[in-house]
């Protein structure tokens, strides 16, 4: 499979890229830092990715570069089967409330810029006859919750977009995979106390790769979060106002 990944240098993106590499897939990396990209490219080559693993700079905050970056990916891979987006910003609710500029950037990157990037990716994939668009949203987007008001809102918007784009373009051969990670132990969540059911990036990556292969539209990872969120969605507002979850 030929896969372009935005966000493969760190966290869950790194874990997904490694899973794909170990089965010999061809990868092209997109990210902000050229040096980081080439270090990750070597790592993935050593882990079994088809040689060579190429990369190009692509920053969610600079949408002008999206088209060129995706074109480069398609050209170097000689065809694109899937585009994976794991890049996103994260900050705690307290940190965001204390900093309006940071809030603006997070909402912008996690929603508007990510959607914009997905639109360019969708166009490319459809122009090539179809393919898979796999995007990391979050369980935080499933219901407004006190600890993730702003982050959750950015992900709720993204989830809604991914569902709509699936409905509209499924018939033309676009497969959309919306990944909703629960709490996963990565550097993004490093400062936080892990709740029960916290997942490991590698286990999440395994589920994600299976979802990409099968075109599963929504995947919770670890799987238990699907049931947790089902419950959360059923809780009355009066309860949600009180609990800290």
């Amino acid at each position, binding site marked *: 499979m030929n896969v372009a990944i935005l966000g493969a240098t760190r966290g869950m993106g790194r874990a997904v890229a490694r899973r794909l590499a170990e089965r010999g897939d061809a990868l092209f990396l997109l990210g902000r830092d050229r040096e980081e990209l080439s270090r990750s490219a*070597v790592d993935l080559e*050593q882990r079994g990715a088809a040689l060579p693993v190429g990369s190009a700079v692509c920053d969610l905050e600079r949408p002008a570069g999206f088209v060129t970056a995706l074109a480069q990916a398609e050209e170097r891979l000689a065809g694109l089967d899937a585009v994976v987006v794991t890049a996103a910003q994260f900050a705690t609710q307290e940190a965001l409330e204390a900093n309006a500029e940071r809030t603006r950037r997070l909402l912008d990157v996690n929603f508007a810029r990510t959607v914009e990037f997905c639109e360019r990716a969708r166009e490319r994939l459809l122009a090539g006859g179809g393919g898979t668009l796999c995007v990391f949203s979050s369980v935080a987007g499933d219901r407004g919750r006190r600890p993730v008001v702003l982050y959750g809102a950015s992900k709720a918007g993204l989830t809604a977009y991914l569902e709509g784009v699936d409905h509209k373009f499924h018939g033309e051969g676009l497969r959309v995979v919306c990944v909703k990670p629960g709490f996963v132990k990565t550097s993004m969540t490093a400062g936080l106390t892990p709740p029960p059911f916290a997942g490991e990036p590698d286990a999440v990556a395994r589920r994600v790769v299976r979802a990409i292969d099968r075109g599963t539209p929504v995947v919770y990872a670890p799987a238990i979060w699907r049931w947790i969120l089902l419950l959360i969605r059923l809780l009355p507002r009066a309860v949600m106002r009180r609990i800290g979850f």
Partner: protein
Amino acid sequence: MAKQPMLSGWGMIGRPGRELRSEDLAAVAAGVSLTRGLGRSYGDSSLPANGGAVAASPLADRILGFDPESGRLRAEAGVALGDLNRLFWPRGWSSPVLPGTQHVTLGGMVAADVHGKNHHVDGTFGRHVRKLRVLLANGRVVECSREEESELFRATLGGMGLTGHILELEVDLQPIPSPWIWSESERIAGVDEFVAALRAAASDWPFTVGWFDALATGEKLGRGILMKGRWATAEEAPAAAPAPKRRLAVPFHFPGWTLNRLSIWLFNTLYFHKHPRRPRAGIVHPETFFHPLDAIRHWNRIYGRRGFTQHQCVLPEHENPGAARRLLEDLTGAGGASFLCVIKDCGEEGEGVLSFPQPGISIAIDLPAGGGIQPVIDTLNRRVRAEGGRIYLAKDTFTRAEDFRAMETRLAAFEEIRRRYDPQRTLHSAQSVRLLGDAV
């Protein structure tokens, strides 16, 4: 109030502290007193002294290059040995040194200058390391090797993280004829016989180690199983690469009473008698041979919440014949009960200023922590001092500073280099406060 976060080594004796984890190790290590890897050292080597934060390397785990001509690997310090095994054994390469568990980082293997079953021929891991990229206490990043900053290089091999934060390293992997092991094993009647058998096997076998029973008494003291091995030739080996082993897990901490003299005696006796009287030979999975304990995840939980420690020392047996037996007799005398003790002969001393191995016999003894542990450790250390041996810092929790200083004749040389690179001793661990007298 939130619960105080705790950290511990493999021995599960907790201390206040927390980890800073990031793919960017240099960013989180800047300004903290210590970097740790996967926390497989038993005691307080990887723990902060003052309950603060330490950097943790496991997310900094990229392979940065491999040259299939020379076998030279460059990697970030957090790469786990298990990852390396999985990726490189099938390609015909192995880490030159494999400690008893593969859940260690390359940085931890450098910092403890680890040894394996091949110490008598291949020395410690440090012998095969070519270059280190180190973040110093003053914030400077330097590359050191045998050619540049060679003193820093030598002090960092086995330096237990006290000279700098290891960010990256270069090490020469060894070519292997197949990823499988040809192994032979046999019963050994007692500790003196063990010393002789290890010596006899040394010239024919690259890998040797023994497991012995320290509860058997009299003639049988130190009886056990000697294992010898070599990489299987391509003709001997199964066609398929060895699949990574599935692991069972100990799901929770056992109650404290499960491990007692009786259960340990039973286990040791069964383990000894499970091996047939006659030598056994055949092909074995490399993980089974090198990392047998990894088959059971969290096996340390069998010790319960009190935790445990390991006392590992090396005794110059050739200078003082009978030293190993005297150590076991002292252990029995002090009432220490240990299951599955490990015995191994060591070869030449390495370059690391504070590296553990020296020529002689190494003995490792697991002991439950709690009430009576200190007098047992003190007894063992008295013997180690008397025989001219030394202990392994990566396993130690309870040694007293005066015993350590008496054993460690190289300490002044180490401190001298440390003074040059970190005069304030900004870098320290709970262990270095305990044994080297670092102030918190």
